[in-house]
């Protein structure tokens, strides 16, 4: 099947408006006869479910958590971008569009990104109207901060809990519709498969995670909003339950999976402390507004620190290497995430790491505390403040801005980051890749849509900070509710989809077979055992730096591990009760397939772009020496994989990316 992105004709600034003016609509009376299923209730799924219900559709929403409010969007800390230009610093829709395409290393679809930038301002208006308590200045207007990879302040925030507040906003909109009966909410339910009738997505099979009951649900369209697949690495900043299964099930039924190798390794996470580690914790990128990243300039100092013979505060300014400021003077500590992560790895690989494992760098707030302290002293009319007073006032400002993050760090690491620099190291965070969708956000299965992190479309090969929240809400509030109408307008006479069709019966049967297989397998090793081994393969061979040999090995190792998993996995308990091991087994089974496709995708893409760094493709000379080298002649395409059985046999379809409004350039932050 040839890929048709369905990008409308016309100038980029007019595409979305013209398109909205010409698509088919469903009249309000007919919307009452149409059902839509939404899987996942994070920012994308929650906002979509609420908006579709407001429009009049009957929505069924599903979440594996015990409440829609707990989806992992809630953990996003730093902020949400919008081209409001409230700061008057030269921001515009075009600039947000440009920054996002450049930040994504020219591997995103232009028209989608422009639309995202265009609706970004509406998101802030909508959220404020819902009562989202964004940070404000003393004049009562909204405050902004700056994030990596841009030269303006366009990030709106609510302390270090922006994701929480935005999700609670979407959740409140859902609550209003649940109360009116327009959304039927299914908590603690997991989607086990999608059901296709006459080639169209017409329902899903779910498992009730409390009773174990396998259920059929029908609808006229199915929306997948189940988030990213970072947990394929076992250790990531994702929630423990975050999984690829909904996306993978639709992939196996015909939805192409795009760019799985585009994964964001976030530069500022708390380093791994031991083998017991179950997840990694992010320290918001917003910290890089004020924190300076460094390692010791001399190897012997790094070694002394690792051995506990020296403390970071013992080193003078000239004994420190602020390597981001040194290498990237224009953007300094606010380079994009992929660049910052690779730079940290480069220093640690060279022996400058600062914790016992040698895999950590410093994020230091001492300068910011001094700077803010002096400023506050002046505001308080003290023109000759003592060092103690500066320190005290400065810490108060830092606490107001980042207090919850500092507390989180203190609790996990047992060190006070107001007194000693934080230790940080990159960790798997976000997946830019995902289900391939067209301009309507529809997958290659008619009637099956994919929104938010679960799709691939807007961030190219690297996502800029504070853009995930923007994309999730743009898709759910402002894009999907329009585009889905164009498809559903054909369904006004279809009537309710019956769930006793043979297609439902068959899908339910195969779901039950898999469940029964797991609980009767009598293997010897736990699900986590396999998940951890998969994670190690991924991190070591498909992580921050990749090469052909490692990727080839990874594919073979994952395949072997998958075979071992099916032979030897042990799932205690029964199928007809609350059984978390059983739920985990199904998720890990899918990760074991995705992991291989991920490595294959990385192997095929013989260039470096964004979060995908091939060691064979780096600049060897000139001012960009050592930086990632993109190959626009051969790789300016989206890799969309078609499932055929074994992940290694997946068929590659290419969507050629066209750049008419932005010139393809080497991405420089120097």
């Amino acid at each position, binding site marked *: 099947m040839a890929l048709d992105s369905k990008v409308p004709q016309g100038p980029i600034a007019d595409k979305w408006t013209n398109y909205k003016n010409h698509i088919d609509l469903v009249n309000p009376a007919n919307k009452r006869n149409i059902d839509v299923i939404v899987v996942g209730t994070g920012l994308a799924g929650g906002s979509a479910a*609420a*908006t579709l219900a*407001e429009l009049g559709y009957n929505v069924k929403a599903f979440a594996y*958590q*015990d*409440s829609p*409010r*707990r*989806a*992992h969007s*809630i*953990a996003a800390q730093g902020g949400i971008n919008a081209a*409001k230009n409230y700061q008057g610093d030269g921001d515009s829709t075009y600039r947000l569009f440009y920054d996002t395409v450049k930040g994504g290393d020219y591997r995103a679809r232009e028209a989608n990104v422009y639309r995202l930038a265009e*609706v970004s301002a509406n998101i*802030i*208006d*909508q959220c*404020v*109207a*819902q*009562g989202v*308590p*964004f*940070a*404000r200045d*003393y*004049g*009562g*207007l*909204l405050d902004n901060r700056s994030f990596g990879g841009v030269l303006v302040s366009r990030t709106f925030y609510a*302390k270090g809990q922006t994701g*929480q507040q935005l999700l609670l906003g979407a959740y*409140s909109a859902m*609550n*209003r519709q*649940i*109360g009116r009966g327009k959304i039927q909410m299914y908590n603690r339910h997991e989607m086990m498969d999608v059901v296709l009738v006459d080639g169209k997505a017409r329902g899903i099979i779910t498992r009730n995670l409390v009773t174990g009951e396998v259920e059929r649900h029908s609808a006229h369209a199915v929306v997948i909003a189940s988030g990213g697949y970072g947990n394929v690495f076992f250790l990531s*900043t994702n*929630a*423990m*339950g975050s999984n690829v299964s909904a996306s993978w099930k639709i992939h196996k039924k015909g939805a192409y999976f795009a760019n799985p190798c585009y994964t964001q390794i976030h530069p500022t996470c708390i380093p791994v402390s*031991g083998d*017991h*580690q*179950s*997840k990694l*914790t*992010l320290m918001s990128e917003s910290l890089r507004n004020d924190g300076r990243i460094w390692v010791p300039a001399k190897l012997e100092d790094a070694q002394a620190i690792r051995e506990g013979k020296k403390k970071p505060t013992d080193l003078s300014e000239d004994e420190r290497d602020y390597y981001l400021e040194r290498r990237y003077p224009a953007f300094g500590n606010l380079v994009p995430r992929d660049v910052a992560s690779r730079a940290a790895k480069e220093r640690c690989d060279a022996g400058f790491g600062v914790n016992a494992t040698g895999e950590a760098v410093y994020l230091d707030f001492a300068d910011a505390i001094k700077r803010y302290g002096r400023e506050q002293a002046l505001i308080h009319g003290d023109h000759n403040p003592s060092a103690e007073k500066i320190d005290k006032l400065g810490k108060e400002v830092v606490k107001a801005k980042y207090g919850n993050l500092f*507390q*989180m760090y203190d*609790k*996990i690491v*047992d060190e006070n980051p107001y007194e000693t620099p934080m230790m940080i190291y990159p960790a798997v965070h976000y997946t830019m890749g995902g289900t391939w969708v067209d301009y309507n956000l529809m997958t290659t299965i008619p009637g099956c849509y994919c929104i938010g992190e679960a799709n691939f479309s807007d961030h190219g090969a690297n996502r800029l900070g504070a853009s995930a929240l923007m994309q999730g809400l743009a898709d759910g509030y*402002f894009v999907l509710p329009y585009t889905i109408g164009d498809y559903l307008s054909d369904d006004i006479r279809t009537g309710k989809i019956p769930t006793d069709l043979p297609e439902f019966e068959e899908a339910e049967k195969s779901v039950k077979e898999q469940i029964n297989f797991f609980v009767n397998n009598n293997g010897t090793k*736990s699900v*986590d055992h396999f998940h951890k081994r998969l994670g190690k393969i991924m991190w070591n061979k498909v992580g921050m730096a990749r090469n052909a040999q490692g990727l080839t090995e990874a594919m073979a190792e994952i395949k072997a591990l998958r075979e071992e998993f099916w032979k030897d996995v042990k799932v*205690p308990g029964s199928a007809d*009760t*609350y059984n978390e*091991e059983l739920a985990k087994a199904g998720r890990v089974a899918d990760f074991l397939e995705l992991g291989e496709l991920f490595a294959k995708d990385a192997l095929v893409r013989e260039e470096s772009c964004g979060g995908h760094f091939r060691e064979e493709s780096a600049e060897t000379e000139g001012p960009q020496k050592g930086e990632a080298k993109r190959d626009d002649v051969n790789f300016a395409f989206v890799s969309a994989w078609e499932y055929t059985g074994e992940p290694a046999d997946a068929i590659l379809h290419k969507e050629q990316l066209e750049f008419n409004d932005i010139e393809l350039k080497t991405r420089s932050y120097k």
Partner: protein
Amino acid sequence: MDMNLKLKIWRQNGANDQGKMVDYSLSDVSPDMSFLEMLDVLNEQIINEGGEPIAFDHDCREGICGMCSLYINGEAHGPDRGITTCQLHMRKFKDGDTIYIEPFRAKAFPVIKDLVVDRTAFDRIQHQGGFISVNTSGNTQDANSLPISKHAADEAMDAATCIGCGACVATCKNSSAMLFVGAKVSQYALLPQGQVEAADRVRNMVAQMDAEGFGNCTNTGACEVECPKGISLDNIARMNREFFKANI
């Protein structure tokens, strides 16, 4: 230094089972482990011995989703302050300690299995008014057209940080949900956008809170102490004021 621990954990096979405390011992616990990672290790041990692992709720493991619960040594989210159970670290315990682990207990939070409880009563309260009635249209007024004083916005934010974990209910001798409901009512009461529906909101949410079987507030203040997000008792006072205003 690694620790050896005795654990007494509530096991209950479904809502209708009577349930009982069961003894476990666990060795070589690292002080850097989180409390839930300690339970992961215990579960791995139970699975390898052919048993059924202990069911407990958890998800984000960074203190924000509100999914984890647990009553540890008689305290919601355990002995530390300002954190959820997933942020509690084993360095708060000593070698040889006996640790009691129970579910959040309240009539309105029935046990699902072991340490997992059903907190959907909180959702049902929110369905009755935990929102501002504004449709998504794309032509909502500009966000800066209505300035809001920083103090009001900050106070609303403080109330809005509630994660809905239910520690307040589990801690309260009356199993009251007033801190939770008060926080939501306050967030909207402090913002101009929330004024239009204020009276209906507080009346309806309080009615649902009562219908769910939560108790009343007797100003003990234990909820505020145990709340992982430091939600202030002031929110209960504000809700009472809003309720009074709505009913005169």
